């Protein structure tokens, strides 16, 4: 239990005029945007710098987030920290189990600093970012075969990185000694600290400008604004006497078991919205467990709900009392210590498809298909054998992109991601820093699910390796499909294969480590497409023909829209009308959700033939799961 050294902050102002509230809201939004800007410009690892795998927040004195994007419970964090907290201190942790899952694997390094004005704590700034490497048994620190968190690299309990402004360099050196890419970690950590300090300075400026009493009173009003807005939304948009359910899957755990079911039920109860994950499969013996923080899920849920109605609203914890997230202990989303957590990205991604699936059943403005709710990873590492860098270690961590789903507002973009602010890494940049050549970077025709609005295509990236090394892959949706909605068809699954320099071809599993590659080997990393939205037989045939010309859909693929092309690539109208009529009759009424299979058993039976990989086995019973 931490002791916070603070003088008594001034009493909150009794009233704040509404315009000042809006002005402070705007200033907080700017402060948060500045946190991101500072981090992106100064971090070194491509994961943070180019792909923006990081999350900031600014909290009020009690630790409630007033602006930001993650679910850190500051009180819970401080409960687990023995010591004082005073001005100039900066706290640091990488232990998900020490902060209620605010960070969900040891690669995420979390910085927390108190913000002081005149000796009193007026708030907190926090930010975490994904480190490319935190040590452990494989480069990248995401071992597929880990069975406890102790195999996943250095695990930093809450410590003071700075004590009254002084860097605790011994602790830092101890930590950095465990990791493979010290410079990146040091620089990324510096960048996180700089971003949080920047936020602290902005809050101090706001207190100086408006008065601390006014500032603190405004935070209460902003929290209340979220509460009121959400209360109205829950009452007007969530049916009162109905339980909505949705199920989706993580395909496998990389150890031969799967799929793992994630199940969520949603209903209203005493003015509150309940999201209950009962029915979700037990935790895995491997590392795909996703320690889901309840507040984080509230935040995700609220963002999807409110932003459609007032996109300029500032996100905060104010509405949290209105939503109750229930996650059974010991399930995939709340594993027991010391379960391995490193490969949680698949579960994290899937809960976004869960959200659209749940909300979309009654809210047409949210009914999207399943889409690129993932950040599949590629790691490639080794030593340069020649040239001016001979003997130097290289280590790549890259996030992949795929198809955004078909949406009520239009087609899903090809080769994007629904993660906020992620960007791809320029291929010329990759080639400059790693011993590889990107021979192809192109979306895959027909991988987007057909629909009135087409799902976005997945991407095929072909990596030609110029040095021997080892590769890790973490992807999903290779076994189940990204589902379509309202008659839209599922998107294409992910695939990986390697063409060896000697001409042989190997299909790689979706999750694997320690794949040895030789100079000249070519890896095809194909991501999945987005599901389609609406009836593909209603899509404008001339648009389908144009997309065939563009190479986004093949002539064969056009038939899935019921579109027949003539020898010049134009629409054969007569044949199209006839084909569509026949296909509509064969299909019957459209399905709300089209998963591309009826039962998991049926999917297992076709797996080897369709994917070249054996079907995963049902996950072991809870009793057999690792403890």
């Amino acid at each position, binding site marked *: 239990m931490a002791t916070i050294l603070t003088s008594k902050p001034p009493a909150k102002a009794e009233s704040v005029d509404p*315009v000042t509230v809006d*002005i402070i809201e705007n200033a907080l939004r700017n402060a948060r945007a500045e946190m991101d800007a500072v981090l992106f410009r100064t971090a070194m690892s491509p994961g943070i710098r180019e792909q923006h795998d990081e999350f900031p927040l600014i909290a009020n004195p009690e630790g409630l987030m007033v602006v930001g994007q993650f679910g850190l419970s500051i009180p819970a964090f401080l409960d687990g920290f023995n010591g004082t907290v005073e001005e100039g201190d900066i706290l640091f942790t990488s232990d998900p189990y020490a902060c209620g899952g605010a960070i969900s694997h040891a690669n995420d390094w979390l910085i927390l600093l108190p913000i002081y004005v005149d000796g009193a704590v007026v708030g907190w700034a926090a930010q975490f970012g994904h480190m490319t490497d935190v040590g452990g048994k494989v480069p990248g620190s995401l071992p597929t075969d880990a069975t406890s968190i102790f195999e996943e690299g250095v695990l930093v309990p809450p410590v003071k990185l700075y004590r009254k402004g002084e860097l605790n360099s011994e602790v830092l050196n101890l930590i950095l000694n465990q990791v493979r890419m010290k410079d990146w970690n040091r620089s990324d950590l510096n960048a996180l600290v700089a971003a949080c300090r920047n936020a602290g300075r902005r809050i101090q400026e706001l207190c100086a400008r408006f008065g601390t009493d006014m500032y603190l009173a405004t935070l209460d009003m902003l929290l209340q604004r979220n509460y009121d807005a959400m209360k109205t939304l829950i009452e007007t948009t969530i049916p009162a006497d109905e339980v909505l359910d949705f199920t989706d899957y993580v395909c496998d755990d990389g150890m031969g078991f799967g799929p793992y079911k994630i199940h969520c039920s949603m209903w209203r109860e005493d003015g509150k919205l309940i999201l209950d994950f009962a029915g979700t499969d037990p935790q895995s013996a491997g590392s795909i467990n996703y320690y889901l923080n309840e507040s984080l899920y509230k935040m995700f849920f609220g963002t999807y709900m409110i932003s459609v109605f007032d996109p300029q609203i500032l996100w905060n914890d104010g509405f949290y009392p209105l939503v109750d997230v229930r996650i059974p202990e010991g399930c995939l989303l709340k594993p027991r210590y010391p379960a391995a957590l490193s490969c949680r990205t698949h579960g994290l991604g899937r809960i976004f498809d869960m959200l659209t699936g749940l909300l979309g059943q009654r809210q047409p403005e949210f009914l999207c298909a399943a889409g690129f709710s993932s950040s599949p990873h590629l790691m490639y590492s080794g030593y340069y054998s020649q040239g001016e860098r001979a003997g130097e270690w290289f280590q790549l961590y890259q996030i992949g992109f795929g198809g955004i789903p078909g949406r009520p507002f239009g*087609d899903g973009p090809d*080769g994007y991601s629904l993660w906020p602010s992620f960007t791809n890494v320029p291929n010329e940049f990759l080639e400059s820093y790693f011993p590889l050549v990107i021979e192809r970077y192109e979306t895959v025709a027909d991988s987007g699910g057909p629909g009135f609005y087409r799902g976005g295509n997945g991407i095929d990236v072909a990596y030609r390796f110029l040095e021997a090394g080892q590769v890790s892959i973490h992807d999903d949706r290779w076994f189940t499909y990204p589902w379509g909605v309202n008659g839209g068809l599922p998107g294409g699954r992910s695939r990986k294969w390697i063409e060896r320099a000697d001409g042989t071809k190997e299909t790689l599993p979706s999750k694997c480590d320690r794949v040895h590659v030789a100079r000249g080997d070519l890896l095809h990393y194909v991501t999945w497409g987005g599901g389609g939205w609406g009836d593909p037989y209603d899509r404008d045939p001339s648009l389908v023909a144009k997309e065939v010309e563009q190479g986004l859909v093949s002539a064969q693929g056009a038939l899935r829209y019921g579109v027949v092309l003539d020898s010049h690539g134009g629409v054969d109208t007569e044949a199209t009308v006839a084909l569509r009529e026949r296909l509509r009759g064969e299909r019957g009424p459209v399905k709300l959700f089209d998963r591309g299979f009826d039962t998991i058993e049926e999917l297992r039976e076709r797996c080897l033939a369709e994917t070249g990989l054996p079907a995963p086995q049902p996950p072991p019973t809870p009793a057999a799961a690792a403890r």
Partner: protein
Amino acid sequence: MTYRLGVDVGGTFTDVLLIEETTGETFRVKTPSTPHDQSEGVLEGIRKVCALGGISPSAIDHLLHGTTVATNAILEGKGSKVGLVTTDGFRQVLQVARSFVPGGLAGWITWPKPTPLAHLEDTVEIPERVDTRGNVLRPLDEEATRRALQHLASRQVEAITVALVNSFANSDHERRVGEIISEIMPDVPVSLSCDILPEIREYERTITTVANSYVSPVVGRYLRSLEDQLLHGGLGAKLRVLRSDGGLAGVATASEAPVSLLMSGPAGGVAGAVWAAAQAGYTNLLTFDMGGTSTDVALVQAGKPRIGRETTVGDLTVRASSVDVRTVGAGGGSIAHVPQLTKALRVGPQSAGAEPGPACYAKGGVEPTVTDANVVLGYLPPALIGGEMTLDAAAAEAAVAGIADAMGLPDAKTAAAGIVDIVNENMFGALRLVSVQQGYDPRDFALVAFGGAGPLHANALGKLMGSWPVIVPPSPGVLCAYGDATTSLRNESARTFIRRFNETSDGEVTALLATLATEAQSALDAEGVERSAQTVSWQVDVRYMGQGFEVPVDVDASQVGDGLLASVASRFDAEHERLFMFALDTEHEVVNLRAVAQARAAHVKAPTLSVGGPDPAGARTATTTVWVQGHEQQAGLYDRSLLKAGNVVAGPAVIVEMDSTTLVLPGHAATVDAIGNLLIRPVEPGTLDADKHLSTQTEAHQGDR
């Protein structure tokens, strides 16, 4: 007698300014712009201004021109049909772009993805490949290339971009493809990415070059037609065009790289602001150009605008040097609204535009805008002196009253004050982006306000920023034309050269800088500028090994040669510390090298006002009522054209002129300087809460310049 002509084509009016260089005597004409062919309005303006000045067109030496032809082609989607040639495997480089979805966590649900500027069906890939150090991995297959180009020819593309992977390291293949295109389609203009942006990052290089192709035909046609007509009209003056980076270019250079003209308009405004403020003795400036739908802000240090490496127009962002202008989508026409769900007051991003416009224009607009709020508060008098339009105050009041009702505020005036406060806060955010967030203290800068709405909001922003004085130049509408007329020829040459400092040497970098300087100077040579009248400076973009962003470090002639890299490294560390509050003990890396050749700026003398005493009574036309600080106050209403140098107008006051209105707040006073700038400062420092300490500090900072 030598004359120069500044011509600025805006959306509504074309401003033409004739300057006699030695006396500074000016003649000014405003004619309606002619969007279908901007040259018509330009020629009409020139004819009129020469008549006004009583000179023959042949007496004009230089015609200096800011143009929005390129910008409008992008904004209106009226550029050319561009064919794109890429490396095999990269046909979808624009389709995928950087995979970035704006709008936060749920942004993907509603984001409409823009169509690529070169359509996918007009994009072909060709077999070839070089690596990142320039080695050929796969030779260019000319046969396959010809077939691909025939396909583009059959699609009747109007311009072609060639952007091959790693061409920044080896441009041979791109150049060869360019030659083949000129055989197959001799009349189609070709842009090579190695010419337009020889820098790493394939998407940015490609989109920038495609944007160049997209505007190239329309810009080329326009400039050639203008040049022909000028000659035809007996005007032998050299035509020069203002580029986004605030430098001038000859017609040939501008036509080859029109992508560098996208910010010509805003750059002219900044250049004019620099010129006007310099007359008052201020060189560290924040510029604030607030129009109807958007506002542009920029930072100027020691008389030099900060130059950024990116240009954004609408949805399009390209890498082209431009005055680092940040645009916020808020202006006089921004609509205020109150979402029912949150009851918050939001201003923008929707704008009433010119049609129907604010409610007070009485052209059918009913939604409350920032301009309406200014009318309700009495800042914009209903009948403007010399103005062609009267404002409907009742309509403004009715529109703003709707906001008061939705928020539960007592009256329209309170709501109007809220709208103005919110929009000022948005502007404040934009000004912070270019100052505080770049490590600059805004109290070290004067704030120069122009544009239709800038002078109305400037005093309030000066208070928020602590930036004094607030300078309102004379005739803000003609400022761009002044900017055009007072800048100089500039040319830039750059290349990507990625090396760790220990992988290169002072000698190697110095030699490359010398080559770039020669390239940059050649364009000025071609414009007939003597080498003795040219200056060259360099920039080296540096980062810590492993970072993704570079920081440009300026290099001058005294720093090249031995010790160059060490000096660049130490200055990079200092700049990094200033920007981000830390430096690292990590290896440095060069990313880009750039040379800038610049001709001497023309010395244009400013016209001066007749001198008067502090008392401005001679310009006071009436007393009006304004709502400030929560209550009504009586304010003086002044006619700016009657003010004399030395007059001091105490706030609250409203100073009107033909194309703008300046608001002076209580506790502040505007001093008229020799050329007619209004310099607004707080009076009696210490008596005003927000201004405590600020004005005296600012005087200390800038008083000795």
